[in-house]
């Protein structure tokens, strides 16, 4: 083993490299230094969870949302991995912010540490880049609209803003190239930049220590390392606990370019959002200028405040910057308060609708998969989707609502109760009372005026025509006699396709009867001259006719709750 390690050391010199990790910590072990290792852990967590997500993620408009929904709802620990990856970004902002504040307060940006400070700022900018590129990849409502807004401001940048934005976006609108480019930026370009900057930061920070020393130098191992590991464990525990508490990363329904969405930024961009919204005509200037101003102010610190630590300039700079960031935080907080639940009923309703779509789309995606056209097509896999679309487009204007011109179609049709009601009052508004020709034809059907038991027998006869197995044979036989001997048969046939004044009632209430009625209601054995309804045999494809008939047959025995369940 020793020989093997010697062999390795001669070739790659790992012992010197390892020794650099054991270099004494300037000023001795301290909790402040643990922020750096907490940051290192968070970057590693992001790299690991990012690589895990890449095992499943597919960057195309057809598959992006579907693959993310798959991770979220079907891959073991998928929700946890996504949650940690998303909230890891927030944790990075928190830890980086804490590090930045401590460094600034301790004057850690002063000569000879300017470069460390600037590299740190560059890293912070790269982190923001991850946030902007990451959320689009979900291709859900949130990612789509939040990124739309961000790129909208970028387009307004003077000079090459439009060209640069289109370059990043891969054209003048969102599409496949937007996803492939954002994915490449998020998973290859930015990580490469991060690696380079982290290496440079570490080299610069090692040269002088990240902060002016206060105590005597002491070895990192084990005292500093122990603190590092404990803080790292606490940060990781907090991150996992928070992401579980927050319900993971969240996933809205698929991006819908036609939809209405209240896009709000991540919390660390809230102050910017709030300022932009009060900036009036200066919104573009603020949106683009404020981030530059912040980075510029921070970058200028080593140039402005270069004297002794704890000098007047330092105090003024710290108070000024502190006040500035406090004002931003207050703005951000009050903006978030305005959007809190219960503050705006209309906003809450829109959010509820978005949440409802998200639940529905994800449940459908889990059950049925997502059709090739992409996320939005998941809604078409809902039960009776096509039939209900046809119903709304072709049927509802006449068969539903107060302005209808035909009988109500739906629950209970062709049931015993429905048939009885029809016989007793054919011209009731829910039956043919609103059908112009039938209601006004002198040959139209009169109300059946027979003793109850005879009406029962006729109802049973018609009920049996539907093919129902539970019809009472004795009643049916009596119904047949009444039908044939009474006045029914003056206008109605009951076999084959014999033409008659009223509809031939063969198979009344059956699937075939219903489909025939949709195909050609004006046929001589159906409503003939009294027909008001268009013929759909040539309007609808056979598959459409089948699905519409299936739906109407299902609707007869359904309850309103069943229909509502279709939308859940």
């Amino acid at each position, binding site marked *: 083993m020793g020989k093997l390690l010697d062999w390795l050391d001669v070739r790659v010199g790992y012992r010197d490299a390892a020794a650099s990790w054991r270099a004494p910590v300037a000023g*001795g*072990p*301290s909790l402040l230094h643990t922020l750096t290792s907490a940051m290192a*852990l968070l970057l590693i*967590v992001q790299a*690991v969870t990012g690589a*895990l997500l890449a*095992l*499943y993620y*597919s960057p195309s408009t*057809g*598959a992006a949302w*579907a*693959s993310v*929904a*798959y991770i979220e709802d*079907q*891959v*073991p*620990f*998928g929700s*946890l*991995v996504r949650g940690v990856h998303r909230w890891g970004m927030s944790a990075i902002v928190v830890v980086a912010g804490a590090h930045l504040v401590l460094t600034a307060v301790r004057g850690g940006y002063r000569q000879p540490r300017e470069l460390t400070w600037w590299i740190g700022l560059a890293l912070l900018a790269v982190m923001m880049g991850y946030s902007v590129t990451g959320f689009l990849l979900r291709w859900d409502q949130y990612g789509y609209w939040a990124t739309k807004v961000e790129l909208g401001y970028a387009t307004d940048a003077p000079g090459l803003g439009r060209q640069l934005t289109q370059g990043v976006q891969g054209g003048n609108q969102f599409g496949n190239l937007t996803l492939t480019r954002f994915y490449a930026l998020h998973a290859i370009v930015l990580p490469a930049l991060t690696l380079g900057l982290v290496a440079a930061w570490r080299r610069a920070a090692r040269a002088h220590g990240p902060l002016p020393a206060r*105590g*005597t130098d*002491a*070895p990192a191992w*084990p*005292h500093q*390392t*122990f603190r590092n*590991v*404990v803080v*790292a*464990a606490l940060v*990781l*525990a907090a991150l*996992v606990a928070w992401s579980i508490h927050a319900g993971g990363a969240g996933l809205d329904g698929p991006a819908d370019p036609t939809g209405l969405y209240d896009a709000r930024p991540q919390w660390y961009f809230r102050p910017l959002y709030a300022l932009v919204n009060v900036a009036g005509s200066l919104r573009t200037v603020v949106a683009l200028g404020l981030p530059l101003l912040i980075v510029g102010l921070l970058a200028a610190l080593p140039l402005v405040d270069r004297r002794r630590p704890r000098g007047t300039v330092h105090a003024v700079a710290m108070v000024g910057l502190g006040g500035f960031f406090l004002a931003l935080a207050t703005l951000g907080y009050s903006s978030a308060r305005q959007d809190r639940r219960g503050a705006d009923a209309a906003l809450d309703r829109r959010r509820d609708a978005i949440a409802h779509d998200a639940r529905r789309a994800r449940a459908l*995606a889990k059950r*049925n*998969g*997502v*059709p*090739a056209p992409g996320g939005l097509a998941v809604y078409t*896999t809902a039960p009776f989707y096509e039939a209900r679309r046809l119903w709304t487009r072709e049927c509802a204007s006449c068969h539903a609502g107060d302005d209808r011109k035909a009988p109500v179609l739906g629950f209970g049709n062709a049931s015993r109760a429905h048939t009885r009601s029809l016989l007793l009052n054919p011209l009731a508004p829910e039956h043919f009372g609103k059908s112009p020709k039938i209601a006004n034809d002198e040959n139209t059907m009169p109300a059946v005026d027979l003793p109850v038991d005879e009406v029962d027998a006729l109802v049973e006869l018609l009920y049996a025509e539907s093919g129902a197995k539970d019809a009472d044979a004795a009643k049916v036989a009596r119904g047949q006699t009444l039908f044939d001997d009474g006045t029914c048969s003056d206008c109605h046939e009951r076999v084959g396709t014999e033409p008659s004044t009223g509809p031939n009632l063969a198979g009344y209430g059956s699937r075939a009867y219903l489909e025939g009625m949709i195909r050609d209601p004006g046929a001589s054995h159906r409503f003939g001259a009294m027909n008001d309804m268009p013929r759909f045999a040539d309007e609808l494809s056979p598959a459409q006719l089948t699905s519409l008939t299936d739906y109407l047959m299902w609707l007869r025995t359904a309850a309103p709750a069943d229909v509502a369940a279709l939308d859940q």
Partner: protein
Amino acid sequence: MATDDSDAPASPGVGRREFLKLATGVVGCGVGAVILVPAARFIAHPVGAQIVTAASAPIDAIAVADLGAAPVRVPLVAHTVRDAWATTNDVALGAAWIRRGKDGTIAVLSSVCPHKGCAIGYAAQTGRFECPCHGATFDVDGQRLSGPAERGLDPLPFSVEGDRVMVTWVQYDNGGADRKPA
């Protein structure tokens, strides 16, 4: 903080040092486990799982009347395939070689070579199936003639409904003399 860093044996600092080393290791391993266990489960999700699923209904392959003594290559197109997150219609699962002997019996063979899974071709001149990858050959009934394959071509379950040949696609494991669904 630095006071307990003395290297003198039996000083109280040594006990603390050793404890810190051990604690660092334990906490570090804990952090590692919190990351690794879910990661392993996450990664292993497709192992042994049915990620690509075709509707199990037999596939309408070809009309009986279109079959002759020479086998014809027929793509088997599933109506619906579920592949991880996606549901796709009309997906070709694979191909079958189908023929109808002089006595009217129909034979349906998978076009997947039982050696390494290449697509088998049919050489009309020799009347044999030949694999383009490693040269396995089979007679027209799928019996192994020569080459590295350890078994004959895999027959696929089928039925005749009316004038249509309905085939059920089965993917068999490559290699081995026994036929096992993959």
